[in-house]
């Protein structure tokens, strides 16, 4: 099993404060990797290092390397828009763009000029809405504002929108934490269906969700990776004391 994302000696500073310390980790291809750990341990920071979102915050310093398919995305000649096209992000709260449902899905394909004519775009929009499990609910109202959808539907729209630019990796930062239980299940179900085609990395605070989704688990504490391994083994037989404590709910 080859690694899809390879992190070596990653250090991240917000100003002078260090958020990640010497993180080295390999994310397996076409599986669901779950990042866990207590609040403030650096999960979001690690996730944002995969699509070069850290640089959107002023004053961040990044050292080390993150390789996607063997290519260091922090190398000087890398096109950041190409990185973000390959590594998609599902945010914590759904953020529809200020346009129609249809255009939300179409937007990414348009900016990357991924189709040549209108009809092809329409076919693709339907395809990705189906993939996200939203088509049946929106097919008669494609040109209404995306904000007219419920929060759960909006998150599935964001999933469709992200899939439409044909990424290899899907990142999710607590992607169901703002949703009701049914909508969360919807998203989880999609992620499981899609996991054979995409490398998925999810941050979650709920242990049960982690157990439902994870093939591979990374446990972090205070900016460091404490333990990483195949989900079944890590959940049943953690090697590190801290991991065991976390799983038992000590902190």
């Amino acid at each position: 099993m080859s690694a899809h994302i390879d992190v070596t000696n990653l250090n991240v500073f917000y100003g002078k404060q260090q958020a990640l310390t010497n993180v080295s980790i390999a994310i397996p291809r076409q599986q669901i990797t779950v990042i866990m750990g207590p609040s403030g341990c650096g999960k979001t920071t690690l996730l944002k290092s995969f699509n070069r979102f850290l640089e959107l915050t002023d004053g961040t310093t990044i050292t080390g390397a993150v390789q996607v398919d063997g290519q260091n995305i922090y190398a000087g000649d890398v096109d950041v828009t190409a990185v973000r096209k390959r590594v998609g992000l599902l945010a914590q709260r759904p953020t529809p763009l200020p346009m129609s449902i249809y255009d939300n899905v179409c937007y990414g394909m348009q900016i990357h000029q991924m189709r040549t004519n209108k009809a092809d775009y329409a076919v693709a929009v339907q395809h990705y809405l189906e993939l996200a499990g939203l088509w049946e609910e929106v097919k008669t109202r494609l040109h209404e504002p995306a904000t007219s959808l419920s929060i759960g539907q909006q998150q599935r729209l964001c999933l469709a929108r992200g899939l439409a630019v044909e990424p290899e990796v899907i990142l999710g930062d607590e992607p169901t934490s703002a949703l009701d239980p049914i909508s969360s299940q919807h998203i989880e179900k999609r992620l499981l269906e899609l996991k054979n085609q995409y490398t998925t990395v999810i941050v979650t605070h709920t242990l049960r969700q982690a157990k439902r989704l994870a093939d591979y688990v990374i446990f972090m504490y205070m900016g460091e990776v404490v333990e990483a391994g195949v989900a079944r083994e890590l959940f049943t037989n953690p090697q590190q004391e801290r991991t065991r404590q976390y799983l038992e709910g000590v902190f």
Partner: protein
Amino acid sequence: MRRQPWNRRHLIERIMQIAMIGSLVIVALCLGAILWTIIVRGLPSLTWQMISQAPKGGFYMGKAGGVLNAILGSLYLATGATALAIVFALPIALYLQTYLATSGWAQLVRLALDVLWGIPSIVYGAFGFTLMIVLGVRASLLAGIIVLALVELPIMTRAMDEVIRRLPRDLAQAALALGSTKLEVALRVIIPQTLPGIVTAVLLAFGRGIGDAAAVLFTAGYTDRIPTSLMRPTASLPLAVFFQLGTPYPEVRERGYASALILTIIVLVVSFGSRWLAARLQRYTVK
């Protein structure tokens, strides 16, 4: 649990409420008094002739004619200046927000704009006039448009800047996460999302431009002829008001108030028109 009407917190609340309502009433009264004055004194003289004719001989001594020259002049000046200002203000505001963000440079540009905002328009007029002497050109509609655009630019840019600043960060990030360039974010996300605010910014600037007398006095000049060329001088409503109110003839002064009324109506029509437009454009914005 019973409410005690005169304890300290309720008292302060009451006093603040009264103060706020008081200020509101004062502002409303001032506005009302201004409108009342120009309506009462201007409406009787607001004839069809006033808005359909240029001044005839002896107009400023009470003979026939109207202020069509100034109405058209003002519309041309303010529309031209506002259009020109948009061309510069929108890119500056977007650049400030998407590329410079909170850097030192951005703060410097903002400071410069705020200083420019505070400079009286007569200074812009004088500056334009000096420049025109150096270049050897005469007062003209074009010169007036350029100088008025300079007057409008700081207001428009800062108003747009503030609107864009209030945009939720998540929104731009959602587009960036799909691999957008900053320009694509600006054109496809920021502008559609902030359009109502941008319209308001344009409106503010238009209002200042059309009401300005000092900047156009030197640069656009004044003439009784209907403006037909960018290279010729042109009349404007604020100056028309000024000249008419400055005469000793009561009927001409009445027509000065009528001209002020016309100016007010133009501003109101443009204002309501663009608000209506902005509301229609708001369909897709994320709240």
